[in-house]
Every structure is written in C-alpha cells, then in structure tokens.
C-alpha cells in the first residue's frame, strides 16, 4: 500500500493547490468594491461593440497542429516505459524501440513534406 500513501500526498497536494490560489480570489470578493454597470461589463473588443457570435470560424490549421501533437503525445505512452527500462533491455528490445521512434519520425517528415505544419 506504499504506492497509495505516496499518492495520498499528491491528492492532498492537489486539493491544497486549488485552495491556495483560490484564497486571494475569495478575499477579493470581500474587499473589492462592487459597482458593476452594463457598460463596464461589456466585453472588451478594442472599444468597438461586439458584433455577432463569439465563435468566429477558426482555421483548420489549429486542428492539424493538435493532430500531430496527439500522435507524438500518444507515442509517449510507450517511449517513457521503454526509456525507463533501458538498463534491462537486450539488443533486440533496444532496437525495437529505435525502430518505433524512426517510424514516428516518418510522421513528421510526411507532415512537413505535405506542408501541413505551415502557418498560412
């Protein structure tokens, strides 16, 4: 149960790291003046009145960055344990990991070749 004791620390830490930054916000509720009016509460868009919906059409580029990032992020599931087990790996197991990374590099080469990662 040692693992869980360690994570109890993380759990308490998590709770406290919500509470500590929340303190000044809560304090501000008590100390700050409240004189709201409609003009003050308007969204600030360079002084021009807000036109239309907040949801403007976004570029698909954002999604593509997210996509490439997702692939690399998911591969981390495997690379972290592999790097961690490095000392215990024999040659075959070692090169299995290297092949994995090289396949990963392909992704990047393709994405760059296809100009996917170009900000236009």
């Amino acid at each position, binding site marked *: 149960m040692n693992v869980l004791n360690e994570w109890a620390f993380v759990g308490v830490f998590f709770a406290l790291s919500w509470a500590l930054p929340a303190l000044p916000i809560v304090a501000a509720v008590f100390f700050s003046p409240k004189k709201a009016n409609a003009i003050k509460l308007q969204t600030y868009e360079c002084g021009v009145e807000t036109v239309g919906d907040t949801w403007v059409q976004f570029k698909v580029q954002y*999604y593509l960055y997210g996509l490439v990032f997702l692939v690399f992020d998911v591969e981390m599931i495997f690379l972290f344990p592999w790097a961690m087990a490095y000392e215990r790996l024999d040659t075959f197991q070692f090169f299995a990991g290297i092949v994995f990374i090289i396949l990963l590099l392909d992704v990047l080469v393709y994405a760059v070749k296809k100009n996917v990662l170009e900000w236009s």
Partner: protein
Amino acid sequence: MVELNAHTVVFAIFSIITLGGAVGVVWNRNLVSSSYWLIFSLFGVAGLFVLLSAPFLAAVQVLVYIGAVGILITFSVMLTRGMTQIKDVFNRQSAASGVVAVLLFVVLLVGVVLPVWGPSGALSSAPASDVVATTAELGVALVDGSQYVLPFELVSLLLTAALLGAIVIARDQDK
C-alpha cells in the same frame, strides 16, 4: 459488506467525478461544456487508475486525454461552428436508446458484476497479490520478442496511418 475508510471514500469521490462528468457530457446542450465535462470525467478515471495501483496509466490518462484528446475535441467543436443553434440535443430514438442503455446496465450488473449464474470472482474483495508490476517491467514487456513487440510496432504504424488519413481528410483542398 464494504467498510468505510479513506480508501472507500476516495473511491466514491472519483466514481462520482467519473459518472457525474459522463452524465454532464450526455445532457449538456453546449458542446464546449460537453467536452469539458468529458475531460472532468476522464480525470475521474485517472483517479480510479491510481486507486488500482496503476499510477503510470493515471499519468498517461491525464497527459493523453486532458492534454491531447480534450484539446483536439475542443478545437474541432470550435471549427464546426453553429452547433449551439441545434435545438434538439437528442434524436428521435432517444427514448428507445435510454431503454437500451438501462437494459444493458441491468444485463451487465446481473450477468457480470453480480454472480447470478455461478461465481465470477467479481465479489472477491482482496486483490490476488500486493506485488504490483512496475512501469519498467511494462517497458520491457512492450519490446520483448515473446510478448508485445509486434503490437508495439503496429501501434506506431497505426498512428502513422491515422495521422495520414486525418490530415488528408481534414485539409483544405482548395489551397
């Protein structure tokens, strides 16, 4: 049957986070809120992984789901604008699907969780052993010739294929 201790309480909290978040996903009209509820729910799953002594998977869950999948879903919600205007959240078969979901739950409950048709081992309260394999062992197992090396390499190919497919589909063809 279940004693009340810190472990149980934490389990209850994470279960509520998981299931509450899931309900939030289903019921929310606004898809952006839905995706945040999804992240909330998946965070609860990470907590359950910690309780099951799989901290590696918990960290990966946070990294992959909150850091990557959640962001990707939010991006695509924003990209496909105009969905807030959809009046009906549910389709015509929602009542029927509700029945199906409840029935499925009952079947799972009776057939799998509670050993009605013979013991399934699901009621055992203690794990088989307290010796838990470490993350380093996972690393070895993944690249071991007699274990998971083939799926390990295939995963790389799968991700490559998925990325290629997704890029080809999602790109603007006009440019």
